[in-house]
C-alpha cells in the first residue's frame, strides 16, 4: 500500500536560485534542452544571500516537500560575498531544522554556475530523488482553518 502511494505522489520542491549564476545555469539547461524532473518551482532572488531562513520555514509550512537554495560558487558571487553569507545562514538553519525534526536532505544548498547547465539538471534530479525517498513533508505544514 505504501508503495502504491509512493507511485502516485510527486513531490513539490521550491528552489531559490540566485539571478546571476544558478538561475542563469537553469536557463542554460533550457537552452541546451537538458531534461530534468518537473517537480521544482523556482523563486528568483538577486543573490543566495537574500534568502532569509524564515523563507525556508515558511515554505515548509506551506507544504513544500523539499527546498533548494542555490548560488554562485565560492569566489564567484556577483555581490562578492553574498553566497558566503548564505552559507553561514544555512549552517545555522540546518541545525534548527534537524532540531525540529526535518529530515536531512529535504532542505539542500548547492553551488551552480551560469555555465553549468548539466550540473543544474543533476542537482535537481538528485534533490527530487532524495525527497521522493523521504516522502511528503508533514512536520511543519500549517493546518489551515478555512
Amino acid at each position, binding site marked *: 500500500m505504501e508503495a502504491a502511494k509512493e507511485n502516485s505522489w510527486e513531490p513539490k520542491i521550491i528552489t531559490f536560485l540566485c539571478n546571476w549564476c544558478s538561475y542563469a545555469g537553469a536557463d542554460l539547461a533550457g537552452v541546451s*534542452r537538458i531534461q530534468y524532473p518537473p517537480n521544482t518551482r523556482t*523563486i528568483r532572488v538577486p*543573490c543566495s544571500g537574500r534568502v532569509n531562513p524564515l523563507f525556508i520555514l515558511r515554505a515548509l509550512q506551506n507544504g513544500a516537500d523539499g527546498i533548494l537554495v542555490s548560488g554562485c560558487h565560492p569566489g564567484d558571487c556577483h555581490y562578492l560575498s553574498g553566497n558566503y553569507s548564505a552559507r553561514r545562514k544555512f549552517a545555522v538553519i540546518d541545525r534548527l531544522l534537524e532540531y525540529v525534526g526535518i529530515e536531512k536532505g529535504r532542505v539542500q544548498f548547492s553551488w551552480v554556475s551560469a555555465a553549468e547547465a548539466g550540473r543544474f539538471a543533476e542537482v535537481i534530479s538528485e534533490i527530487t530523488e532524495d525527497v521522493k525517498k523521504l516522502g511528503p513533508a508533514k512536520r511543519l505544514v500549517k493546518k489551515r482553518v478555512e
Partner: protein
Amino acid sequence: MVGGGIGGIQSALDLAESGYYVYLVEESPAIGGVMPQLDKTFPTNDCSMCILSPKLVECGRHHNIEVITNSWVKNIEGDAGDFTVSIIKEPRYVDENKCIGCGLCAEKCPSKVPNEFDAGLGKRKAIYVQYPQAVPMLYAIDKPNCILFKKGKEKGKCRICEKFCESDAIDFDQEEEQITVNVGSVILAPGFDKFQVDSAELAKHGYTSLIAQYGYSKYPNVVTSLEFERILSASGPYEGHLVRPSDKTPPKRIAWIQCVGSRDVTCNSGYCSSVCCMYAIKEAVIAKEHSKIPLDVTIFYMDMRTYGKDFDRYYERAKEEHGVKFVRSKVFGIEEREDTGLYLRYAAENGELKTEEFDMVTLSIGLNPKSSAVKLAERVDIQLNHYNFCETNTFTPVNTSRDGIFVCGAFQGPKDIPETVMQASGAAAASAALLSDARGTLVKKKEFPPQKSVIGEPPRIGVFVCHCGINIGGIVNVPEVKDYAATLPNVVYVDEGMYTCSQDNQKSIKEKIAEHNLNRVVVASCSPRTHEPLFQETIQEQGLNKYLFEMANIRDQCSWVHQSNPEQATEKAKDLVRMAISKSRLITPLSPITLKTIPAVLVVGGGVAGMTAAQNLADQGFEVHLLEKGMKLGGLTKKLLYTLEGEPVQPFLTDLVEKVSNNPLITVYTKTVIAECSGYIGNFSTKVKTGPKKEIKEIKHGAVVIATGAQEYKTTEYHYKKNRGVISLLDLEKEISKASKRVKECENLVMIQCVGSRDENNPYCSRVCCTESIKCALLLKELKPEMNIYILYRDIRTYGFKEDYYREARKKGVVFIRYESDAKPEVNIVKEGKKDILKVSVNEPLLGEKLIIDADMLALAIGTVPLPENKELSQFFKVPLNEDGFFLEAHMKLRPVEFATDGVFMCGMAHSPKLIEESISQANAAASRAGTVLSKEIVELPGTISFVDKTMCAGCGVCISVCPFGAIEMDNEQEIAVVNEALCKGCGACTASCKAGAINLHGFSNNQIMSVIDSF
C-alpha cells in the same frame, strides 16, 4: 546603414546608442535579413526568432534610427564626414502611416504565390508581410503578382484589398520616391545571396549545373538547407513537422551534402562558406529531436570545419550523443528511383564507390555575394575581390576602398551570426571614431509619457502567455494556462500570443493596458534575464512604471526541460504563473538611481586587440588606461611575421604601438597588474600595481575592456623541446623570415596539426593553425620550390577565402595526409652520421597503408590555450569563464563581446583563439559597445536597492557587517542604519540578516517573496 539584417541592426543600435542618428535602408519590406528564416542557431540551439525579436523591436522603435524599407541606395556622393546619399524608395502600395497590420487584406487577396520566406515551400498572398513578426509590421503589395497590376492598373478590376482595408491604407497610386540624406559615414551590411543551385546565370557562364548532379528541382525530396530550416520551423510551411515535400510523410533517413556551391571552382565559388558545417550539424541534431520516429541522419563532407568557439564540442556531441553519422566522401550524384527513394552515389575516403538510399537529401548550399550589393559597389566605386565580395585589408577589416564607407557581415566574406555581430559593432566603432566631433548633435531623446500613479489602486493584473512558436506551445497547454490565470484574484485580462515579444504583440499589450486600465503586467514566456527589459519598456510607453512588471519563465525552465512530460510541464507552468501573479499584486513603482558616468575606460592587455580597442576609444574621444603585464606592448603578435595573404605584420604592429604610445588620451602602464577592483557600470575603481616598484595606483573608469589574449600550449608531444629538429610553427616562421641555413638545407619537412587542440585536454579547435601551416608551406615553396612538404592533419579548416591558399598549396605540391585522432602520427629519431632523421609514420587513408616519411624538420601546429590568470581576472570583474578557461560572453550569438555584468567587455584571444583580423574586428566591437556606455553622461542604476524603515531599526549594525559593498552606514545621531543608494547593488544580504525586519529590498521585499511562497 545599408542592409537591415542582423549586422545592420547591430551597427545601427550601437551608433544610435552612442549619440548618432542612423538611417537604416533595407531593400525588402521588413528588417531582419536571413535570421528570421532560421529555425535554431548553433551552437546553443537557441530559437533564432526568439533571440532576434528583441533586437528587431528595439531597432524598429529606436528614436534615433529611421528605418527606410523597400528602398535601395542609388548613389553616394561626397567624402568621408560629408556624404550625400540618394535613396530610391520603391512603392509599397500600402500607406505606412495608415496600415495597422491587421492582415485582413491578405486574407481576402485572391492571388496566391510561392512564399520566398518559406524558401518557396509554402504560399503567401500578393499582399503580404514577409514574416509574422516582421518589423515594421506593415503589409506590402508584390506588384508582379498583383492581379490588378498584372492586367494594368486602369483596366484591372480586382482591388479586393482596397475594399476590405478598414484603415484605408491601400494606395495603388504610390510612386517611386527619391530620398536624399546627408550623412557622415556609410556602413554596408547587405548580407549575402544563397547559392542558386538551379541558377541559369551560372549555366550561361559555362559553370556546372547542379541540377544534373544532385537533381535539385527535379526531385522534390532534394531540398536546400534553407528549405530544410523552414521545414523545421514551427512557423514554417509544415508547422514544424518533419515531413518530406513529395508526400508529407516523415522521412526515416536524411542525408546532408556539404560544400554545394562552396570550395568548388566549377561553379565559381572557390571559397569556403564558413557556416555550412555547423548549420548542417545543427539541422541534423534538430531533425532527430523533431522526428517522432527513429531517424538516421548522415552528413557527407570533405573537411569538418567546426572551428569556432565551442563548435567542436557541438560536433562531438552530435556524433556521440545524437548519433549523427559523418562520412568523409565526395558525392557524385543523386538518382531517384521508382519507389521515390533517393540513391546517393559517393566515393568514400579510401576511394571505394558506394551507393546509399535516403528518403530526403539536404544540400548544404553556400553563401554567395549579394548581387544587389555588387551593383551598388560598382555604382559607388567600392573595390570587390575576385569572388565579388567586398575587398578589405587584414589590418583594417571593416574599411572599404573608399574612405568613410565601412563594411560588415557576409558581404565582407561568408561568416556566421556572432562574427557578423562583432564586425557590425566594429564598423560602428570605426564610424563613431570618424564622426566623434558630431556625437550627440542630431540625436533625439527618448521620452516616455508621464507615469500614471497607481498608488492606492487595487491591483488590476493583465496576464500574457506566450506560445513561443512551438517552443512553449508544443509542450505546455498554453490555452489551459491562460484560462487558469483568468480565475485568479485581481487578474482582469488574459491573452495568449504566438510570439509575445514581437512588435504586434507589444502593441497589443499597450492597447490592453489602456483598454482594461491594467496597473500590473505579467508575461509568461522565456527568461527575464533576456526579455524583461523589452517588456518593461513596452509598459513604460503606456505610462506604467517599469517595475510594475513580472515574468514567469515557462520556456527555459519549463517547456524546454520537460519535453517528455507535457502534463506536468503544464501544471508547473500554472504554478509559476500563479506565483508571478501573486508577487505582482505586491509590487510597487520604483525610481531608478541616476549617477554620472566617468568617461574613461580601462583596457586590460596590450596586445593587438587591447591596443586596437584603446586606439578606437581614444579616437572616439574617451580617456583610455591601457594595462600591460609585460615590459612592452604587442602581445603574441610580436612573434608573427606575415599574414596568410603575405602582408608583413611587424610594420603594422610598430605603427600601432607608436600611435597608441603617442596618443595624448591613452595612458600606457607596462609591467602592471590589477590588485583590486570595485564599482559598477559608469563608476569603476581599479587599483593596479605598476612599474618595477609595484606602486599602487588607483584608476577611475566607466567601462572595462578585457583583452588579455592567450598563450601557446606547452606540449611535450613528438619530442618537442627535446630534439632540435622539432619546432613550433612560430619558430618555423622565424626561420623562414631569416631564410636560415637550416630551412634552405631542409629537403623533407613535415607539419603536424592539432597538437594540443581537439584532444581530451583541450577539446576545442585553435582555429588559426591550419591557416598558419599553409602560410608557412607557401612561404617555403617560394623559398625552395623543390622542398617536400607534408602536412598531417585531421580536418583542414581554411574557412572563407583562406580556401584559395589551401588550393594553391595543393597545386604547388604540398602533400596533405589525414590522420585520425586515435591513430596519431609517430615520430622516431634515428641517427644518421651526425644528423638526426625524424622518421614520421602515419596511416595514409587512401592507400590504407602506413607511410614513413624521413623528415629533416618537423613543425608542430601547437594549439592556443587560455591564460591561467583569467581565473583571477574573472573574479575581479565578476565575469564568468567557460569550461576551457576562456571568458564566457553574455550571449554566444548576439552579445559576443559583452558580459552579463554591465560595463565589462572583452575582445581578442581572451574570448577564443582567432586570427589577427578577427581580433581587430572584435576589438573594435568591444570599443563600440564600451562607447555606448561612455557616451552617456548619466548612467541609470536599477531601483531595486535596499531601504530602511526608521521606525523598526534598532541600530544593531548587523546589516553593516554583512554588506559586501560598504553601502550601509550608521547614523550615529538617530542610531539607525542608512543606505548609500549609489553603492547598494541590491543583493539583499542585509535584508536577509535583519532581525527586526527593518531593512528591506525594493523589488524583492520580504512580503513579496513570502507571498510567492504562500501561493506555491
